[in-house]
């Protein structure tokens, strides 16, 4: 028994060691990959898109209705979001609104909302389609906010439309529904998702910050405003 203890412990250690990620897996470097790939045009898009997209700082397929700030800002940030993801809700309600107010509205940062509906969320693509349609009638901010604030409610019953109706007038609602039903904006949501896949995004929220000098910093998950602010200030001071 005494003699078998070392052997069993050694075997246990070897077993655990086998679970270690292989260097290639662990690398997974969205950083290096993104430096080169995030700016590549996505094959599936602009020609098919019914609405004109723009290119800013080399970043293609930007839907101007889903952006905040000025295009010539020194920093550009793509935020890949899923409306049904709790961490996205937290990021939006506690951090991004302050970032938009203090950095995007002051010309320091250009924020691009990228939809990245995850497969496992039943209503996130529907929510993304409705939010996109609302953005095209100038109601982006109000609709994004109401969707995030009431996330638990509509993900329980799937009533995305009912949630939007609380902030849109009947006439606006009609326009949004018409846009969703026509499916003319669906390609924009899919284009965003493809951009995320190209940039190795596999989690939401993922914020990808681009500098004018070509540096790319992917930030995964929720981030507090204090640390976001510190990082943006450091990038701006460079």
């Amino acid at each position: 028994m005494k003699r078998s203890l070392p052997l069993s412990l050694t075997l246990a250690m070897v077993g655990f060691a086998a679970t270690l990620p292989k260097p290639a897996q662990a690398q997974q470097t969205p950083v290096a990959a993104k430096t080169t790939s995030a700016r590549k045009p996505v094959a599936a898009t602009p020609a098919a898109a019914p609405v004109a997209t723009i290119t800013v700082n080399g970043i293609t397929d930007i839907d101007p209705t889903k952006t905040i700030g000025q295009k010539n800002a020194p920093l550009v940030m793509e935020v890949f979001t899923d409306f049904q993801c709790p961490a996205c809700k937290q990021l939006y309600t506690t951090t991004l609104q302050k970032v938009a107010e203090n950095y995007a509205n002051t010309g320091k940062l250009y924020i691009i909302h990228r939809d990245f509906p995850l497969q496992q969320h039943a209503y996130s693509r529907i929510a993304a389609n409705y939010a996109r349609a609302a953005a095209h009638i100038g109601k982006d901010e109000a609709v994004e906010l109401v969707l995030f604030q009431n996330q638990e409610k509509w993900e329980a019953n799937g009533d995305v439309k009912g949630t939007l109706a609380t902030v849109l007038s009947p006439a606006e609602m009609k326009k949004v529904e018409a846009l969703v039903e026509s499916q003319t904006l669906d390609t924009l949501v899919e284009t965003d998702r493809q951009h995320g896949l190209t940039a190795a995004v596999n989690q939401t929220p993922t914020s990808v910050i681009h500098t004018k000098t070509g540096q790319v910093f992917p930030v995964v998950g929720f981030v507090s405003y204090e640390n976001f602010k510190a990082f943006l200030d450091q990038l701006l001071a460079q």
Partner: protein
Amino acid sequence: MLQSAPFNFRRIIIWLGRIVLAGFFIYAGYAKLFRPDLTPRVPPKMALTLFAMQIDSYQMVSGNVSKWVAHTLPFAEIAIGLLLLVGWQLRIWATIITAIVAGFFFVVVRAYAMGLQINCGCFAKPEPLTLGTVFRDGALLLLAVLMTVFAYQEARRPHPWIAAASERS
């Protein structure tokens, strides 16, 4: 025979623990401070802010606390790793390192159980937190516990070489 040999099982585990854990700690601290994975390189101040953002993603502490942890942990990891490697006051550093690894393990298990899709942040580079991360941290914790327990046990008995020398004299 096994107990009196200069390299018995306990001593091998202590040595293994010292080398492996010191290596992990020193590299983890260095990676957080200098971000060798980023091209072009970023200054340490920015690297530490990026680490603070990774701590944020665990959704456990406020932004100011994660900032403090980010500006303390990498230096502590390097210092404790070096002290463990040197072996001076081994029991103290082994105990501290075990407590830290237990903390890491708890945090990783909690995030995994909550289904947080985040990066581990263990070595600063983007490394998704998976079941493999949980097992790795579990293995390190097991090694740290064994090393610490054996270090205390070994401290009670003189090393056979030293004992033999003192008997001769």
